[in-house]
């Protein structure tokens, strides 16, 4: 499984992309979508909501189960990908394009605590994948 090297990751299988305007874009990884199977429903956070790090903020539901998505860092939700509400299958088709929400981090330095591709790969290995 190839893990895009330009992104950052969490152990809970979110990917994070740093944008030029200082916001971050968040989605779930290829590994996460494979575990869950066909997506059928996505519940996105409200724009303007303030999130703590590791706070549950999105629910993705597949044919198999509901799973929480956690905020990678503390911040404020500035955009959500509402297209996923009618087409949740886009997460299965291309999880690195089908972003869930954009966040304005409370503290840009928090991003340094995220995993790089290599670190995420190691985290997957230690999970036994």
């Amino acid at each position: 499984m190839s893990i895009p090297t330009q992104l950052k990751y969490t152990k809970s299988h979110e990917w994070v992309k740093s944008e030029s305007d200082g916001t971050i874009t968040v989605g779930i990884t290829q590994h996460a979508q494979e575990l869950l199977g066909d997506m059928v429903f996505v519940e996105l956070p409200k724009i303007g909501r303030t999130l703590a790090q590791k706070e549950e903020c999105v629910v993705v539901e597949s044919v198999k189960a509901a799973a929480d998505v956690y905020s990678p860092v503390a911040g404020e939700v500035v955009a959500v990908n509402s297209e996923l509400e009618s087409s949740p299958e886009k997460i299965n088709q291309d999880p690195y394009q089908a972003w869930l929400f954009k966040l304005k981090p409370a503290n840009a330095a928090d991003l340094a605590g995220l995993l790089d591709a290599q670190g995420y790969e190691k985290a997957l290995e230690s999970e036994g994948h």
Partner: protein
Amino acid sequence: MLKITPLNQTHREMNAKMVDFGGWDMPLHYGSQLEEHHKIRQDAGMFDVSHMLVVDIHGENVRHFLRQLVANNVDKLTVSGKALYTCMLNPDGGIIDDLIIYFLSESWFRLVVNAGTADKDVAWITSQRDKTAPYLEIKPRRDLAMIAVQGPNARVKVWQVIPGAQSTTDNLKQFQAASFEQYFIARTGYTGEDGFEIILPANDAVDFWKKLYAAGVAPAGLGARDTLRLEAGMNLYGQDMDETTNPLESGLAWTVDLKSERDFIGKQALLQTTTKRQLFGLLLLDKGVLRSHQKVVTHRDQADGEGEITSGGFSPTLNQSIALARLPAEVAIGEEVHVLVRDKKLAAKVVKYPFVRNGQILV
């Protein structure tokens, strides 16, 4: 150590995602559960159901033994090959298992029981045999495999794969079976579509599966099997019913014969019970997905107005979430209820199930 069916290696070769299903290593899907579901509603697909157990009962007057063993009446089986769906109850009326019984001859009936309950079932049947009919032979058939081929084109594809079988099985009605060569072919299933369930020697299973695949029958996993049976409004043992529930509160009164003089295990308990709860269908009106064990609230008083989802999920055919729920028996079809999902109260409509049969949406 997980138990495996004769097709285990074949599933892996076909890139199945395997899961532990009640101690069996079984395919969940082969890529997309949704595609497998649609394929069976629209064309033909196949399931390995070899984890289920065939139990043959041989000896003098098997019918007499079964009259008291199960809740439905085996006297309805008058033609060889005819099948009957029934529950097997404990003395309290609780459901030990649901099963299909095939009448082959007065000295040979065939039972097909669930995988997760197979050991318990055989032990129970044997203990009853020891008490009332010690001369009968109870024969679990792990030497057999079972493949369910389901969908509007399922029968035609089976006939392509078993040359000569058409003339023997063309006229089979629903819930009727016939033998052809090494195949026991029954017009039964768990999807709400037409098709066959085929019992065959374990050694022939891989070859037969591959020929079906070559004929265009898509392999399907337990994931699609669950959404198909839920749409078809068919109970799943262990989820919609178990030993703590009886058939009358599980939407299965039609399978219980309380009218004839015949006594059967659990009959007295059922005659004395009042049915306060019943299974209903739910159609989710809000967005989300219903799951088993979610609480359902009605407008009735808190104490007796609540219920629980027994099976819930996303219906690929309806493109919305559906469920079976055990609710107060007086709930009306069409009534609006609410389901507690995480921190939300989602609106759902009570409907009569099945939701889907033979490709048609019924709700």
